[in-house]
């Protein structure tokens, strides 16, 4: 499969997200129950889906890293988790705003989806101290992959446990007795989801490209200054990225 260039993919992302938001504001009907605030749904839910899928993708990369020992997969796993955590912040913020507008509270504790997402988010937030606490790069990469796999298995289990524990006041928009979303809303949602997934993929590739470029730069700089020793520059917890990491796998 031919991988599109980063620039073309970025353009496609802008187009899809632009089209999605245009549909949100000019095409999708107002929600009969919640009115205008319901439109945050088209941002909040795709963000959440992308963040959770990103965690699963990271677990997949981690498995490949452990099987092959290739640091490229560790770098991909790291970047996937990194971006999913950032998306996760977005999910919590938009979810809070939506909760405030429709339920009157910023946070509702007996709401399973909120709580389970928060737990997953907190778990993945510990990925950074974990990497930071292990100095040896090789071992750090291996342990980070073990964490990514364990946490990847944890994500679905956590949702089962928390959802069973509590009441269901979170809207179940796709599977309700009345048949779920009307067609125009579903179409808008799908475009937004596509745009958001493209955004996630583009950002992953962008970060990998940036990391490999800065690694190359520091290698060149060291060669220029005639230094053959010294630690690699850049942050200590980000994995070193070989130059071929920029293509997605």
């Amino acid at each position, binding site marked *: 499969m031919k991988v599109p260039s980063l620039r073309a993919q970025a353009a496609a992302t802008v187009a899809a997200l632009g089209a999605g938001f245009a549909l949100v504001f000019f095409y999708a009907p107002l929600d009969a129950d919640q009115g205008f605030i319901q439109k945050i749904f088209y941002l909040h839910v795709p963000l959440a889906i992308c963040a959770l899928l990103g965690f699963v993708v990271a677990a997949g990369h981690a498995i490949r890293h*452990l099987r092959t020992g290739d640091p490229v997969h560790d770098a991909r796993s790291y970047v996937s988790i990194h971006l999913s955590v950032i998306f996760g912040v977005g999910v919590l913020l938009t979810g809070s705003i939506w909760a405030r507008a429709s339920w009157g509270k910023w946070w509702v504790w007996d709401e399973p989806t909120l709580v389970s997402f928060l*737990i*997953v988010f*907190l*778990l993945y937030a*510990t990925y950074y*101290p*974990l990497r930071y*606490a*292990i*100095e040896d790069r090789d*071992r750090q990469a*291996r*342990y980070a*992959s*073990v*964490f990514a*796999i*364990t*946490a990847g*298995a*944890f994500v679905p*289990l*956590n949702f*089962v*446990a*928390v959802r*069973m*524990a509590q009441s269901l006041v979170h809207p179940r928009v796709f599977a309700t007795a009345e048949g779920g979303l009307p067609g125009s809303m579903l179409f808008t949602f799908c475009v937004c989801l596509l745009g958001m997934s493209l955004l996630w993929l583009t950002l992953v590739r962008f970060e990998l490209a940036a990391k490999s470029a800065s690694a190359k730069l520091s290698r060149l700089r060291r060669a220029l200054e005639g230094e053959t020793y010294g630690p690699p520059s850049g942050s200590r917890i980000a994995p070193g990225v070989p130059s071929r990491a920029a293509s997605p796998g």
Partner: protein
Amino acid sequence: MTSPEEGTGGPGARTHSLRAFTAILAKDLRVELRTLQAVPAMVLFAVTTFVLFRYGLDRTSLSGSLAAGVLLATVLFAAILAINRLFVPERDEGGFDAIRLAPVDGSALLAAKAAALIVYLVVLEAVALPVFGVFFLDTWTGVAPLAGVLLLTDLGLAATGVLVSQIGANSRARDLLVPLVLLPLLVPVMIAAANSAQRLLAAGGPSYGGIGKWLAVLALYDVTFLLVAYAVYDFVLED
């Protein structure tokens, strides 16, 4: 560690990982019996926490979800004490090196450590549960089935605990990292165990309605994380 009991696993470990498992487990339990490092500290911690709850909540009897929460939070934090210490002797005294030098499967070490942790937790609960009953319970009818729930909880604690403890043992900030990573991972166990226990500790005797699905979640968690730990353990073991 130059203890004579290492000799018991010597030639047998080469052919059979079951013998390696029993040898490591026996070694751990013997070390614990001689040094008394983990279990007495856990028991003391649990009893002190019950006293704190007793005066902090200012209640002479508890039932339902409050009782379940007090019991399980105490067991959880006591377990973290043991999980923190689980691999420290191996690391400080060179036990890892000895085990890696011997032709022993890594999963034997994993299973032995998990079994040792389960033994510690069972001993802890054997003391803590009666104390809990004396302090807080009006009726004792729910205590026997509660032991079964706690056993399933221990399995889950052991599966994730061993994995995280092994990761923590080789990091710089061990005491910080283990609870940080472990607590979110254990949330599903605590939810399922607390929901089962609150039915057993309900005021006016245990009720068994709806307890089955919670036990199923607990068992699902145990199986999943035992498998995950088994699958990835070789990669966290030092080479």
